[in-house]
């Protein structure tokens, strides 16, 4: 672990109109780490990722990426700096082919030999995408779309890969596949920030975890230590804090 984190968030406040969603979040992700953010529905997990990726503008606080202050930067600018977000609900471009979806993921990259090599590499991870290469994204199954969404994030060779609920709406077999894939990506040295509702699975593979509740960080640390330090039902079921969501 280096001294300078890849991502450093301090005292982040985000609101939707007059509704405050995040109340002073502090967070760090280091090179090569797999960090997961857990919490119940409405805790603010996706909001954190959207604020980091530039979709939402923070009210106050700061976000530093690779040592640079990027608070309030535009999403396209942050992508160029090396962030990639695999959005919740996959957000595949439905009428575009798999090829074209990937090409947008690689926007700003030259489509040269190194692109072709990265593409071949992705096909070893996601053989199905090679088969479906010329099919419209909207015709893919849910699992295949999730593969495409992750591949679309990876094709830019990001320094930070953020995934928002990658297992949402998938069959148990596919969920297994997605989590195996995340472990594989981590073993390749990719820095990952993972938002998951499936806390048990996410905590099982994470180096560190943040537990989010009502827009605040309830706990941060190693997943193994989590059990002893907070009421575990609040992680999985929302507990007392989640009751009023």
């Amino acid at each position, binding site marked *: 672990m280096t001294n300078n984190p890849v991502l450093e968030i301090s005292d982040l406040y985000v609101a939707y109109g007059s509704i405050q969603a995040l109340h002073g979040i502090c967070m760090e992700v280091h090179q090569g780490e797999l960090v997961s953010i857990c919490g119940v529905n409405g805790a603010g997990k996706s909001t954190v990722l959207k604020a980091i990726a*530039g979709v939402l503008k923070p009210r106050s606080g700061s976000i530093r990426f690779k040592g640079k202050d990027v608070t309030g930067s535009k999403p*396209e600018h942050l992508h160029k700096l090396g962030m990639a*977000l695999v959005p919740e609900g996959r957000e595949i*471009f439905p009428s575009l082919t798999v090829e074209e979806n990937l090409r947008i993921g690689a926007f700003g990259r030259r489509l040269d030999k190194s692109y072709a090599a990265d593409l071949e590499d992705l096909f070893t991870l996601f053989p199905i995408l090679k088969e479906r290469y010329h099919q419209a994204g909207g015709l893919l199954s849910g699992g295949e779309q999730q593969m495409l969404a992750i591949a679309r994030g990876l094709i*830019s060779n990001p320094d930070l890969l953020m995934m928002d609920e990658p297992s949402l709406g998938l069959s148990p077999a596919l969920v297994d596949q997605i989590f195996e894939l995340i472990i594989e990506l981590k073993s390749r040295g990719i820095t990952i920030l993972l938002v998951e509702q499936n806390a048990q699975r996410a905590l099982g593979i994470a180096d560190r975890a943040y537990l989010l509740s009502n827009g605040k960080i309830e706990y941060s640390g190693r997943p193994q230590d989590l059990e002893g330090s907070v009421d575990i039902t609040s992680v999985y079921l929302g507990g007392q804090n989640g009751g009023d969501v």
Partner: protein
Amino acid sequence: MNAEILLEFAINVLSMGSLYALISLGLVFVFGICQLVNYAYGEFITVSAYVLYFLGAFTSLPWPVVFLLGIASGVAVGFLSELVAFRAFRERSLDALLVTSFAVSVILQRLFQLGISPRSKAVPIPAFFNMNIQILGVITPLRNLLIIGTTVVLLTALVLIMKYTTLGVAMRGASENFVTARLMGVPANLMISVAFIISGFLAGVVAIFWSARTGSVEPMMGATPLLIGFIAVVIGGMHSLPGSVVGGFVYALIANVLSLTLPSSLLSFRDAFMFAIVIAFLVLKPEGLLRGNYQEERVG
């Protein structure tokens, strides 16, 4: 119905449809990217027509140069209006954008009235445009064939650009899901600029053929093509580029069928029949003939 009448009908529908397809395509390009119904689009056409008038009447430039400069002025007004007027309000709300487009439209109209003249000016168009030619016994002005050829070339070029260039693929992605495209590194400003540039380019081409048909330009001339564009887009589908082209041709087909079939006493009400058809579309098929992949959010 004999073959000559059929051919004449086909030429009329195709030439009118080509022009209308270009008009509505210019509207839908901008709408697809930033959900803006651009009321100033008609004025883009007027600006180009005035440039054709000034260059044609006061310079001795050869017509290809005049046409190119006319189209260039359409591109310029599209690009600059976005940069100067729309960009500032884009982050606010869609309503603000819509009002801005009214403002741009009215400001340009007043500038034409005060700066040039409220009266119409004759646009010099090369004579061969309106020369009558005979094909298979049908006599038609050459401009009708020119617009068909121009449209075939432009549509082919646009299809190739949208399908095979990274910029085109990004434009299609951005029109389906703008935020996700930005998350993939597609710059919002670039997409919107390009949409306005293409829109202005089409307005410039339309200005040539529109003023060739009417022979003149006046401050409010943009209103009619704008209305035609709206109707074609309602018929074809607001969220689909091919839909807008189809809409243009369907509009021309309906208009020509009405011209042929309506008794002469009702012919002056052709537009009223046209609007009735548009209302029918809005009630029965509000998404248009081709719906595209845009997901409508329900509002009621």
